[in-house]
């Protein structure tokens, strides 16, 4: 692709990601409604889809207020950071054999780096708000990041071992015979949980836990700044779904249908699964979350790593 094409495609991806995240806010509410035996927003437009527009108008016309006790510069910077980091993460996702923005040989590391950067946004937002609930939310976010980042990276090393590359396109191509969700099922399980924790989705939304911390790290945020945090969260959900598709479910690979359709279909199913988790599972206590991370998930990941390495060596020797 030429330089201009890449820029154009990048803009398309940004528009699709942001638009998708906006639609997701409505879709999630409808789907939660289905699973909780109610309707959700169904009034405005066909199936209530214009609810997105109504929400947007409401958020845009709200007073864009910065509390006088907050650290102004950081307070304004924090919500932007999460959106920027998450959107940058989309740069390495291969949507099809020729549909990608960046084809770098450390694509996976780039993705991990960007999701880690997004955590700073939550942390800084909590710190800059100068509010005890926000601070507690930021604190939890930091601790959650430390414990879940560790095995998030490690859980992907099995995939990297099998492929022998950090390049996401190479990883997808290597799954032509068998999707990695079968040989790497443990890796998939741990990455799934780490992914939910990383994007602060329920049941791991302890940084905002509205029952205990009012709204956690975004207690003091309103209007468009709050919308940016929400956008970041939904972008994170999209990004994690894209990455799971790429790494474990064969990315764009699939018979009959064009590659991009397969990719979108898989991402859609994964998003539905994430929403199902939100509908079904209650939020764990904070110490339970930490215990799960360090006592169960990390050993499982290491076990997976060890087994994958041993089998890979055996196969190579044979």
């Amino acid at each position, binding site marked *: 692709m030429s330089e201009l094409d890449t820029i154009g495609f990048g803009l398309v991806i940004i528009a699709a990601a942001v638009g998708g995240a906006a639609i997701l806010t409505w879709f999630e509410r409808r789907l939660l409604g289905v699973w909780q*035996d109610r309707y959700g927003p169904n009034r405005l437009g066909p199936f209530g889809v214009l609810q997105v527009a109504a929400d947007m108008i409401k958020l845009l016309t709200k007073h864009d207020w910065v509390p006088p006790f907050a650290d102004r510069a950081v307070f304004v910077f924090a919500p932007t950071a999460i959106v920027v980091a998450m959107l940058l993460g989309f740069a390495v996702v291969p949507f099809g054999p020729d549909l990608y923005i960046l084809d770098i040989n450390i694509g996976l590391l780039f993705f991990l780096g960007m999701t880690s950067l997004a955590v700073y946004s939550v942390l800084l937002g909590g710190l800059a708000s100068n509010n005890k609930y926000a601070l507690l939310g930021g604190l939890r976010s930091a601790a959650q990041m430390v414990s879940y980042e560790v095995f998030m990276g490690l859980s992907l090393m099995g995939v990297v071992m099998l492929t022998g590359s950090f390049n996401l396109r190479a990883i997808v191509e290597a799954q032509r015979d068998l999707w990695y969700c079968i040989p790497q099922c443990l890796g998939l399980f741990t990455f799934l949980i780490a992914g939910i924790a990383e994007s602060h989705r329920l049941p791991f939304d302890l940084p905002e836990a509205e029952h205990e911390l009012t709204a956690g790290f975004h207690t003091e945020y309103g209007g468009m700044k709050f919308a940016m945090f929400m956008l970041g969260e939904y972008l994170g959900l999209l990004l994690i779904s894209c990455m799971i598709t790429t790494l474990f479910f064969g990315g764009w690979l699939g018979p009959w249908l064009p590659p991009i359709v397969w990719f979108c279909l898989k991402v859609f199913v994964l998003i539905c699964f994430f929403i199902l988790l939100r509908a*079904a599972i209650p939020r764990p206590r904070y110490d339970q979350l930490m215990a799960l991370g360090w006592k169960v998930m990390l050993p499982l990941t290491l076990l997976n790593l060890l087994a994958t390495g041993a089998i890979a060596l055996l196969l190579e020797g044979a």
Partner: protein
Amino acid sequence: MLSSLTSQLRTIWTILQHSFTKAETVQYPEQMPYLAPRYRGRIVLTKDPDGEERCVACNLCAVACPVDCIALQQAVKEDGRWYPEFFRINFSRCIMCGMCEEACPTNAIQLTPDFEMCEYDRSNMVYEKEHLQIDGTGKYHDYNFYRVSGLAIKGKDKGQASNEAPPIDVKSLLP
């Protein structure tokens, strides 16, 4: 650990099964919810089977009302019947508790299954007698207070009510 994992998986499965159940929601303005006949909503004043107003202005409802939203003034008609000169319920205070209905000795004041009484102006929530009075008998079709009470009115003397014997003349020796 394992049992908690299976519990979580079972939860997910149960929720997934709810994809095929119908929503419980009643879509209110288009779809009216069922309200029981004895639902406690808007208050009305009823008339007896003969078309006379039942209220005898005894003030028991006003006394029973825990929020003091009922005001009325008693008056007497030429034929001896009692009636309220005015009868006023301030629905912005009313809590629809139904105490007035229970206190009423003549079944005049009754609560109906109607709750749609929003107003833009608070003063419109004050209902006068002409707003409260209905032509029907409400929930009790055959009851007529003056037909069963011992009170003498024009055209019905003491002892002429139904289930009532003529008064005994205590000063007479006749059986």
